[in-house]
């Protein structure tokens, strides 16, 4: 059983295609913004992304060859490290305020979001711990509660950073792992009450979140203010039509969509590639999810299964929320689109996650093609 099989071809291929498409879209969407903001340096974002992508690929191939079972014992340390880093981001000098949030850590030339590490830490720790203690999970106090408390600490730290999207992703991924590990549905329902109250409180507490909800309900009314992004995104997606304007030919990326290479890159892609492009990309993500869950189902042990579902969920939740936001299907939150949204370090972390998933696939028992 220890003998390695080939990795999952579907996942590997999907990841490569998405990575290529993502890099192209980063260039296409950012060119005008870069030209305008960085004094004519049209290729700035492409250059940076082209530096990160190979690093990410290498990272994926390296991690792919590390037995995931060795990761378990590092997971608790990783949790502690990630929590410390999240706190550090709030310290001026190490962290830096960007648009009212403290999401980034700057150490020398490297800058990254500690939440990226936190995501992987939570997946690994929950999977490792639950694979050992899953029988306890049916009890609330000695089973579920400790995990909820860890989630609570993360939520508190992330909210302290004012990182709502990170909070949603980490809480969702942790809950999905708990769910797959066998937590009782009853407990989930009970949990949902304080969770909903918490979300409502978070929205009311910060006026800008309330504004976003209002802008979601009637973006055209707030077209000049909070609704601007959503309106511009809808115009971009809408004007793409069935076949799109053609690659590179988006007009909405000309400063209409703020930072078109980040959270709203999907809108630019929809405008340039049309519904055909949107369909293809979402289909690729669907294939990824399908293969991810297949790996989880056929993993040799619970640990591998939980990691697989954790990583799959990590991707799925971000894709779903990102697309929902840009299509004005839910209130705006700054959710990046995996493989597409610009970001060097986050791409490297993402590729590490892909490596772990592919590594698990090498031990799974199923038909690979």
């Amino acid at each position, binding site marked *: *059983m220890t003998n390695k099989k080939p990795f999952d071809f579907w996942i590997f291929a999907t990841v490569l295609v998405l990575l290529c498409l993502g890099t192209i879209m980063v260039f296409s969407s950012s060119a*005008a913004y870069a*030209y*305008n903001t960085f004094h004519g340096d049209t290729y700035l974002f492409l250059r940076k992304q082209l530096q990160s992508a190979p690093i990410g690929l290498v990272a994926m191939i390296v991690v792919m060859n590390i037995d995931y079972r060795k990761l378990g014992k590092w997971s608790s340390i990783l949790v502690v490290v990630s929590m410390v880093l999240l706190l550090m981001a709030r310290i001026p000098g190490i962290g830096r305020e960007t648009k009212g949030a403290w999401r980034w850590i700057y150490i020398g030339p490297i800058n990254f979001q500690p939440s990226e590490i936190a995501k992987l830490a939570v997946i690994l720790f929950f999977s490792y711990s639950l694979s050992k203690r*899953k029988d306890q999970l049916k009890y609330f106090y000695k089973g579920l509660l400790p995990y909820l408390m860890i989630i609570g600490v993360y939520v508190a730290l992330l909210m302290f950073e004012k990182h709502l999207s990170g909070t949603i992703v980490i809480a969702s991924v942790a809950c*999905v792992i708990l*769910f*797959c*590990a*066998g937590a009782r549905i009853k407990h989930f329902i009970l949990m949902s009450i304080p969770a909903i109250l918490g979300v409502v409180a978070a929205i009311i507490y910060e006026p800008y979140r309330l504004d976003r909800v209002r802008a979601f309900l009637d973006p055209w009314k707030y077209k*000049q203010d909070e609704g601007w992004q959503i309106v*511009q995104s*809808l*115009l*971009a*997606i*809408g*004007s*793409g*039509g*069935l076949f799109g304007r053609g690659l590179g030919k988006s*007009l*909405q990326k*000309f*400063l*209409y969509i703020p930072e078109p290479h980040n959270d709203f890159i999907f809108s630019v892609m*929809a405008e340039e590639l*049309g*519904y055909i492009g*949107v*369909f293809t990309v*979402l289909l690729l*993500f*669907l294939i990824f*999810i*399908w293969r991810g*869950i297949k790996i*989880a*189902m*056929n*993993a*040799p*042990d*619970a640990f591998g*299964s939980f990691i697989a*579902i954790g990583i799959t*969920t990590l991707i*799925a939740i971000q*894709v*779903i929320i990102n*697309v*929902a936001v840009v*299509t004005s*299907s839910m209130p705006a939150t700054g959710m990046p689109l995996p493989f597409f949204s610009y970001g060097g370090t986050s791409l490297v972390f993402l590729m590490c996650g892909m490596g772990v998933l592919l590594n698990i696939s090498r031990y799974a*028992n199923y038909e690979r093609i």
Partner: protein
Amino acid sequence: MAGPSIQTKKRLLFLLFFFTALIAALLVRVAWIQVVQGDKYQKLAFEQQTQDRIISPRRGTIYDRNGKELAISASVETISANPQVIKKTKQNIDGMAEKLSEILEMDKETVLKKLKKSSRYEWIKRKIDKDVGDKVRKWVQDEKIQGIYIDEDTKRFYPNRNLAAHVIGFTNTDNDGIFGMEKVMEKYLKGVPGKILSEVDAGGLEVPFKEEKHIEAQDGANVYLTIDETIQYFAQKAMDKAIADNNVLNGAAAIVMDPRNGEILALVSKPDFDPNDPRGAPAGVDPATWKGYTAEDVKLLSETVWRNKVVTDTYEPGSTFKAITSSAGLEEGAITPESPVNDFTVTVGGRKINCWKPNAHGNETFEQGVFNSCNPVFVRLAQGLGIDKFYSYIKAFGFYDKTGIDLPGEATGIIHKRPSEVDMAVASFGQRFTITPIQLITAYAAIANGGKLIKPHLVKEVTDVEGNVIKKYEPEVVRRVISKQTSDTVKNILEGVVSKGTGGNARVAGYKVAGKTGTSETVDTKTKGRYIASFSAFAPADNPVVCVLVILDHPNTYPHTGGYIAAPVAGKLVEDILNYLGIERQYTEDDKKLLMQEVPVPDVRNVTIEEARKILKEKGLEYKVEGDANNKDAVIMEQTPKPNASVLEKSVIILYTHKPAKDVMVRVPDLSNKTISEATQTLNDVGLNIKVNGMGNAFAQSIAPGKEMRKGEIVEVEFRHLDTE
């Protein structure tokens, strides 16, 4: 080692379905945005991406039928700003607002607010004169200002002010036609705006690597109306006078139509407005509290000055409708002009219907019945036809339908759907149902043109910028209503109404006018002047070229009959029009008898009395000497009236042999109700001369009784027939 448990596998499967369902939902959502609503978003996106300065097209000119300008577009300029550019270029906004408000004579705060907006296009001031625009242009160039634009624009200008305002209509500040022909012909007049299609980013700066495209504006086409500016002017002046003379409370309407082709030559609705300032305060409203844009104000405007009585008001036609009843009877062979009839009381459904004349006219021919406008004659005629026949003519003459005139808001009146005997009896003389003025004149035009109902219209043709005709409006015959022969008979009878009957006040020497009077009661039974006096006419009676309808709504005067107050207006209007159209007068013997020769007063100053006597005798004038009357060699120093004044033959010219130290003054006598000869005599008796207008009995005099005048001067007197219903 054990893989995931069965429970885990089940939950994993659930997750697969869950995620798939969500992504599928998003695919549907994107399809909705891209495929279903794609066009809408694409259009909106296009607008913001290319929202640049628009090159406005020049709106087409509206001409009258002879090419006289009724509505033109004058070149003006519009100042706009791009606040985003101003912000981005970090200019001194306060200073800019200061300077702009100074040049444009605006409040500085207002300008500042506009410059600080977050939009990319703000009007600062629209439609300013060229010289003001030049001042802004100079400032922009001198100071190298960015984000302020001076663009060509056009402003609608109506040189004739109130003339034909209801027909021409007006535009809003965007030059969109919103009333009258400006609205109806919008698609021709408007033109296509041009654009500078440089794709712009959200900051309003041009997108790099993109080519700029200029799309030139296409100027609007020109519209030629059927209106004749001169005839319109005659009609408008006539209505102004009629309103003043008769103290008309609810306004008035007049239509002049060419019965041969349905072309409207003039259309007047009073009160009216100046299309250069259509939202100005109507009479009787305090301009201080007037805005002109509030819902309340617009409502008032729509009900008063904007209201086109010709197409939107409905009224009881009264006796004018007898022409329709007559046509039906004659066409059906139920009656001939010579048929013996009488106008003794007729009882229908218990209701007695009498002639307007207290003792009735008795036995008469049908023709005389029409001349005298005897109601019982028409009741009996309608009864003879029967309900179905009678109403089939009302329908055929178009009273159940809109005429289809090319003006918005045409109404239809209330007219019996299932008429009873009583309904028909009163309808035969035009009561208890309502119609619009345009319906009536259209029906009269059918009588006048040989029997064809023709759709009335206001547009003759549309030409492009080069003057090529791109659309021509031909007369549209709706249906034949009566035969040529019936038409001729009715024309003849209606001519008699004017020459021998109740329409006498419409009589014009030298022109055969046909017409019918109408006096309708309104539902306002208690209010002042609750009548509508009207006169419908066409001329020349044997070959009509114009059809005229005059309606005076609520004349607060007495008598208030159409024959007394509307007929003279229509008659004068017909005379002016036929004169203008160059129709030659053919005087009948009657005309000649009535026509008194007017002569210009010769200059007899500085000649002896003897010489003056000779000169005046030659002209058929009398004279009277003040001063040294017996000295035949005395030299005339002064005369009244002055040379070249126009007086009747046999008028008395007063001659002075010395410069009078003081004018010899006489008191003007009251001429009310006197006949022409009585009035002439009365005036001559006190040493005044007369100028006669009209026929019948004195109705008005130019100088009020009791006032003093210099001896020999002329008093203008207006005469009218009193015997009119």
